[in-house]
């Protein structure tokens, strides 16, 4: 006989002890039976402990009865017996595993029971060999947040899965917080994978959030800036006095013993400066060299090193050199190090401003959320919010995660994401998005997307990815960058050899100066920075305007668009049509009956026009009836049977095809079409019964946005499956002269190809599933963010709001960015193409001009700063001229 005792871990959890199970198939039989009940959320059977855990609202007696019906016996869980049983098992088979969802005989169960029945259980847990091992080994602890753990018995499954990983010393889950703490030297992704394998989701609690990453970056950049400025002052502390001395005619040569002593002292001071202020260049150069690569450090180290070594040779062996070549260049070494550190410091500052847009997006994320757990509202960190958590948001607070409103109504400001200034009303069952602002009411909502799955997190991710992608225009700079430094080194050697072979006296001094100057003036950084800096600002600017650009290629191509195809429904129009007219042709039918028949036909369709008819019927409390033999005829309409009557509902082509006589109703339909309405004929038993007209209002700013596109010289074309007369009427209203009407869904991409064949660079804008192939084929596909996911996935650019101004904004930003990139690339190319030969002394034979290495250092330091500053100008660009 088993004792009856009930134990509730929480209000909706029931644990029962089962007897009579012979094999593990009994487990699935019992679980299946309970899972089929709507009042049971989850059931788990632990075969070895003979334990059934039920989550839901089932009563104990109900559960016992069901088990009896299945041929087993049940009673409430006996804690005392289980503790003994677990204590025995814990010393023998802690690592034994089970395929059961509530794994048994494991350390995991030991811990659950230990928590429930402390202090005895706790002692048992502490006495286990695993814990002894734990105490002996000091290893790192990893904290993971678990999703999908609905019952306390899931704890066992998770802990067992983790404990079985080599290197894990212990795993303890806190069910209330849904966190698990793992001790052992195992990487978090290995742990996460193990948890995912058994059907749960996990993420690291220590994952660095975008916000933290940004803060850390700012602190690190500030520290780096301070350190560079300090190094700059140290280097210029010696370089500037020497430079002034030289400029005022002070001899920089070694003639006397006193001069040798003084210059030797300065040379040693210079070494100290090279160490304190330029160490990073030399270490970087050496490591790159050892790694068979070369970078900016290589050029600076070689340039300053050559100047210093030559100067020291002059100091130590002046007599070995011709008299005119006994010139020292210590000021060049110190000045170059100082100026380049200054340039780098200013670049760090300027770069900080480049990522302003992404900072603003990241700043939209709320830090905490107020969730309802155990019937209490508690404030928790945003990363602790779990899927399906009920979240409270009060007026003035940010929406912390994506979700669906379940209680209350409010207005939400979505302008930060969509650029749409008007707040949007939200009631029950409406979706809300993280990062937007609750303006008025207090609401409760259910979290549907958390962490990195929220729309805001994905937008941030997309913007970051796009910011780091390069448009094709940057590829040439990339190729050049890859060969640049070694090529400059070769030019430097060639220059020195030319001076030594053909140069005037002192040829050696000229050779040293030209070789050093070539190395110093060349600036691979300006080339490398030219494209990415502008892309970062441009993509960020677009995001601020509610335009998400997928990658650099889309950004570049958008600037070249010559023709833009706009889908009519949902793009130019609101996509929410309404029934405007019902014209009866056969007086034996009433308008109500016609609407009922039409709604019955269209109730299965998702097309916006069909939806308009169904909505209109529902508004008039007309209930659609069941129809049969429904058949959709692409480009024509539908055919169906209703109470032994044949129904035809669609356009003129469908009627003519079936021999329906239209009389003068063609003219009436034409009149409706001329008013930008879509007329549809309804025939019953091949006899015209009525015309139903549906109208889709044009978005209020479509006309203005289309004008903006046309003002940019873009050929705007409207594309629609609608009849020609309606299409022409809508086109006329919005100022479009070219229309592709009556286009079948599968023909949309053909129209894109048609324009491409005419030599146009085509942009296609759409929102529906059937637009996806055309969006993919177009040179740039634009999806309306309020449209379907399929359209968004197929598009290169997504407009986060419905307004077509987003198109003009996207093109304007893309043109401005490309212009900026071209300026940067031109500057960087010209600088290097002109600077390197000038430094090598190409002007010397004609004008006697040879550049000083110090001037080269200053030019080099400020060339990359110029590129970054020019990219920063884009921040002030305003795409919205409306």
């Amino acid at each position: 006989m088993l004792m009856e005792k009930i134990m509730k871990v929480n209000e909706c959890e029931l644990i029962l002890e089962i007897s009579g199970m012979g094999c593990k198939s009994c487990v699935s039989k019992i679980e299946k039976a309970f899972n089929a009940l709507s009042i049971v959320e989850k059931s788990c059977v632990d075969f070895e402990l003979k334990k059934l855990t039920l989550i839901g609202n089932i009563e104990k007696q109900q559960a016992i009865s069901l088990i009896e019906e299945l041929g087993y016996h049940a009673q409430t869980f006996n804690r005392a017996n289980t503790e003994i049983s677990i204590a025995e098992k814990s010393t023998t088979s802690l690592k034994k595993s089970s395929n059961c969802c509530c794994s048994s005989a494991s350390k995991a169960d030991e811990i659950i029971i230990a928590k429930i029945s402390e202090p005895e259980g706790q002692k048992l847990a502490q006495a286990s060999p695993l814990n002894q091992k734990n105490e002996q080994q000091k290893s790192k602890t990893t904290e993971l947040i678990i999703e999908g753990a609905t019952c306390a018995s899931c704890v066992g499954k998770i802990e067992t899965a983790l404990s079985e990983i080599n290197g894990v010393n212990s795993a303890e889950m806190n069910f209330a917080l849904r966190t698990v703490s793992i001790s052992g030297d195992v990487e978090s992704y290995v742990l996460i994978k193990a948890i995912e394998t058994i059907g749960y989701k996990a993420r690291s609690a220590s994952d660095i959030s975008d916000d933290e990453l940004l803060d850390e970056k700012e602190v690190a950049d500030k520290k780096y800036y301070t350190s560079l400025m300090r190094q700059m002052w140290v280097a210029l502390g010696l370089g500037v006095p020497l430079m002034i001395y030289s400029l005022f005619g002070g001899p920089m040569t070694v003639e006397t013993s006193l001069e040798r002593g003084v210059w030797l002292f300065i040379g040693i001071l210079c070494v100290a400066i090279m160490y304190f202020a330029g160490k990073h260049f030399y270490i970087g150069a050496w490591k790159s060299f050892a790694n068979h690569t070369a970078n900016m450090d290589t050029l600076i180290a070689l340039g300053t090193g050559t100047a210093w070594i030559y100067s020291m040779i002059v100091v130590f062996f002046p007599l070995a050199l011709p008299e005119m070549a006994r010139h020292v260049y210590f000021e060049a070494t110190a000045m170059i190090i100082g100026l380049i550190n200054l340039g780098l410091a200013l670049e760090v500052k300027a770069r900080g401003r480049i990522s302003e847009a992404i900072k603003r997006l990241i700043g939209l994320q709320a830090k905490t959320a107020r969730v309802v757990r155990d019937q209490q509202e508690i404030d928790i960190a945003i990363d602790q919010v779990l899927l399906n958590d009920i979240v409270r948001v009060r007026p003035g607070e940010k929406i912390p995660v994506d979700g669906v409103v379940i209680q209350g109504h409010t207005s939400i400001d979505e302008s930060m994401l969509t650029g749409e200034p008007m707040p949007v009303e939200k009631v029950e069952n409406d979706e809300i998005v993280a990062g937007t602002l609750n303006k008025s009411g207090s609401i409760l909502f259910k979290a549907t997307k958390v962490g990195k799955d929220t729309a805001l997190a994905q937008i941030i991710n997309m913007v970051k990815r796009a910011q780091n992608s390069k448009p094709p225009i940057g590829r040439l700079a990339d190729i050049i960058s890859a060969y640049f430094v070694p090529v400059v080194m070769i030019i430097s050697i060639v220059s020195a050899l030319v001076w030594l072979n053909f140069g005037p006296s002192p040829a050696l001094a000229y050779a040293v100066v030209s070789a050093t100057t070539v190395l110093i003036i060349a600036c691979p950084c300006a080339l490398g920075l030219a494209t990415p800096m502008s892309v970062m600002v441009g993509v960020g600017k677009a995001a601020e305007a509610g335009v998400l650009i997928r990658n650099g290629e889309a950004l570049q191509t958008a600037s070249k668009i010559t023709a833009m195809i706009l889908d009519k429904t949902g793009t130019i129009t609101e996509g929410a049509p309404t029934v405007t007219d019902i014209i009866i042709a056969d007086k034996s039918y009433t308008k109500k009956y016609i609407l009922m028949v039409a709604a019955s036909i269209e109730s299965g369709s998702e097309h916006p026009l069909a939806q308009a008819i169904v909505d209109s019927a529902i508004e008039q409390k007309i209930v659609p009836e069941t129809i049969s033999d429904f058949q959709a005829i692409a480009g024509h309409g539908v055919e169906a049977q209703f109470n032994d009557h044949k129904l035809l509902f669609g356009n003129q082509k469908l009627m003519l095809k079936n021999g329906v006589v239209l009389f003068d109703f063609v003219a009436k339909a034409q009149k409706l079409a001329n008013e930008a309405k879509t007329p549809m004929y309804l025939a019953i038993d091949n006899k015209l019964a009525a015309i139903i007209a549906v109208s889709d209002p044009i978005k209020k700013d479509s006309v203005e946005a289309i004008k903006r596109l046309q003002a940019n010289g873009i050929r705007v074309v409207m594309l629609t499956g609608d009849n020609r007369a309606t299409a022409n009427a809508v086109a006329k209203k919005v100022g479009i002269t070219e229309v592709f009407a009556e286009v079948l869904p599968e023909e949309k991409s053909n129209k894109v190809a048609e324009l491409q064949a005419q030599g146009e660079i085509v942009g296609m804008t759409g929102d529906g599933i059937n637009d996806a192939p055309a969006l993919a084929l177009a040179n740039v596909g634009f999806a309306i963010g309020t449209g379907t996911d399929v359209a968004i996935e197929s598009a290169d650019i997504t407009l986060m709001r419905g307004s077509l101004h987003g198109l003009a904004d996207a093109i304007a930003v893309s043109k401005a960015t490309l212009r900026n990139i071209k300026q940067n690339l031109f500057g960087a190319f010209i600088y290097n193409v002109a600077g390197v030969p000038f430094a090598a002394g190409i002007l010397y034979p004609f004008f006697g001009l040879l550049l000083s290495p110090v001037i080269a250092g200053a030019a080099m330091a400020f060339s990359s700063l110029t590129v970054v500053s020019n990219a920063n100008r884009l921040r002030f660009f305003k795409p919205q001229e409306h």
Partner: protein
Amino acid sequence: MLIINLIGLGLIALIVWWFWLYKPQSTQVSDEHNISEITVVIEDGIYQPANISLLENKTLNIKFIRKDESPCAATVLFPDLEISADLPLNKEFSVQLPAMKKGEYAFHCQMKMYNGSVVVK
């Protein structure tokens, strides 16, 4: 002068060989828990190791530890895989690469001054 010219030409040849013709050996990634992983330290202007080799159709977890303060080192790009990451200073940051086909996949900083490659064999 002849000797100086020969030294100069020799240096040029050395540059060509050292930076372009020499093929450095790549570091084979470890394969624990059936997941390939490797730690890449970013310090003093380079990725260490910079050349990584991996077997075909294996996912790769690269743990970047950025010790280089330069802002250029803060971003790593894998252009062929359309992956990029912002790397925190003095902290480990994992970048997961999908299973790749045979070939060479470059990774670099924004300016291409820090260069590395994943060679899939």
